[in-house]
């Protein structure tokens, strides 16, 4: 059983630490991505039409992902236009590390 | 009870089995699947053994190639399919390629391990008695590695059979995998069940009547078994 102390435990500890650290990092950086105007709109109406800016042209993967958060109404270059997004979904989108910013349309 | 489309009564399944057997489509698909297994074994196993022995002769080379072979083992089967389709297109070439790969790497890896675990003293004994390299290979290394080789073959065919069924669903239009996947498109659950039972019986039969006895005989004859992932 002592062998476990080396390989497996070290691996599991490292895995948990990395995962925990990453989630913490996401939680810290997420709010910065959301524009103040979006927060206000959400506060007022509960839903908002947002423009999600990425650092690259979105692929199928991203479009499909956004479709689970709102109604995709268009793509302009590196920005995806998303309608009727609720507060929860804005929060979730903000946690994607590859999202640059969320602004109001 | 459940609608027949979800779980057809045994009578329906038996009737469909009879029909498929009678119009030949069952046999054609069985032959296609088994043929691919056989082709895979016949083409890749001797090559894998030969290469495994050759590489195993040099301890340095063996130590280096072992992790690479281990990696390809981890990759066996279905993960090769998209690449195979890119290279060979849809059809039996891609699907047989899957079989080939799975069996080749597992047999190669196990041959390598088997050759390396043959105690050096036997090699020395052969050279002391004036034996040539060929003697060494034929009378010491290969018999000594045989239990490992057969285990590798067993696992290779086991993994390969599963990968084959999956590959037939995706990339070709014959074989048991295709039979059941195609039937799903038409909601022909009785055909699916016939196919599933056939697949299970074929593997059980191969395992029980061919592979396990083979493994047991080689272990009895040449002793120690070492297994690999």
């Amino acid at each position: 059983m002592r062998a476990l102390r080396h390989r497996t435990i070290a691996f599991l500890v490292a895995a948990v630490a990395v995962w925990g650290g990453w989630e913490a990092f996401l939680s810290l950086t997420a709010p910065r991505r959301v524009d103040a105007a979006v927060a206000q709109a959400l506060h007022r109406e509960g839903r908002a039409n947002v423009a999600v800016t990425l650092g690259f042209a979105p692929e199928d993967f991203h479009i499909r992902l956004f479709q689970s958060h709102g109604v995709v109404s268009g793509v302009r270059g590196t920005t995806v236009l998303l309608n009727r997004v609720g507060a929860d979904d804005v929060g979730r989108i903000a946690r994607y590390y590859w999202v640059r910013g969320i602004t109001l349309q | 009870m459940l609608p027949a489309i979800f779980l057809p009564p045994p009578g329906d399944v038996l009737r469909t089995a009879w029909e498929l057997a009678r119009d030949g489509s069952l046999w054609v698909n069985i032959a296609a699947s088994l043929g691919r297994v056989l082709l895979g074994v016949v083409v890749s196993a001797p090559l894998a053994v030969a290469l495994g022995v050759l590489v195993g002769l040099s301890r340095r080379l063996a130590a280096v190639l072992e992790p690479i072979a281990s990696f390809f083992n981890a990759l066996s089967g279905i993960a090769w399919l998209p690449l195979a389709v890119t290279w060979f297109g849809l059809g039996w070439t891609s699907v047989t390629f899957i079989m080939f790969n799975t069996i080749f790497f597992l047999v190669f890896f196990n041959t390598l391990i088997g050759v390396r675990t043959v105690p050096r003293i036997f090699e020395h004994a052969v050279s002391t008695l004036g034996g040539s390299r060929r003697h060494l290979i034929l009378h010491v290394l290969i018999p000594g590695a045989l239990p490992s080789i057969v285990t590798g073959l067993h696992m290779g065919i086991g993994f390969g059979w599963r990968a084959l069924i999956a590959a037939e669903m995706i990339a070709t239009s014959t074989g048991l995998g295709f039979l059941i996947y195609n039937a799903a498109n038409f909601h022909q659950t009785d055909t699916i069940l016939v196919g599933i039972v056939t697949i299970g019986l074929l593997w059980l039969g191969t395992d029980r009547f061919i592979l396990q006895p083979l493994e047991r005989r080689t272990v009895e004859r040449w002793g120690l078994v070492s297994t690999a992932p």
Partner: protein
Amino acid sequence: MTVRWDLAATWAAVLAVTLAGWGLAAATLPVPDYYLPPPTAVFAAFGDLVVKGILPTYIAESLRRMLLAALIGLAAGVPLGLVLGMSRRVADFAYPLLNFFQSVSGIAWLPLMLVWFGFGERTILVAVNYTVLFPVIFNALLGVRSVPRLYVNALRTLGASRWRIVRDVLLPGALPSIATGMRLGLAYGWRALIAAEMLVGAHGLGFMIFNAQAFHLTARIMLGMGTIGVLWLVLDYFLLRPLEEATISRWGLVQR
């Protein structure tokens, strides 16, 4: 953990030679570009997919499904196998059934699952969990049956209750087999997962490489294949194999 620098150096050399040879082949072979992308293209694809968040998401999806199957296999498969193995009559009855269901991999059940559940997450989960469960149940059963009756009887003469016998004799005795069963089940399960993801298409590494083929993004295919192989190696080396070896060395007698 000792690091063998000489071995590592040899591997590095072999890796370098392989990459160089591959690059050369990619540049010189008379085949269309998308047949054999050079190693640089694969590394670029890696960077690309990580920046876009695609690769980590797909890896997480596949691992999540695998973890779930492992947990269910452990929580449901082990107790079931133990219970089935405890009675000789039940075990003899269950043995051929389990053997048969183990022979039919989860993927073969996929078409039926598609009819029942359609193209979704549930179909994948059912197929993968099935694939993992049966080797676990089967090996747990074998493990229990392989414990010499002598030990069970010895404990009985000392007045042990049924529960004590299970906990102190049957379970430890069966542990090596259970560990083997988990390892085998997860090996089959990982491969079944990739196949299921290709067929059902609900994200995951299998879907990634399958989808990439449709667009001739061969560098992505190779990247995905590499990831699949490396992930299994990591899981096996750090988790499964140590577990198996530990149970064998501690609870000993394994007839393999």
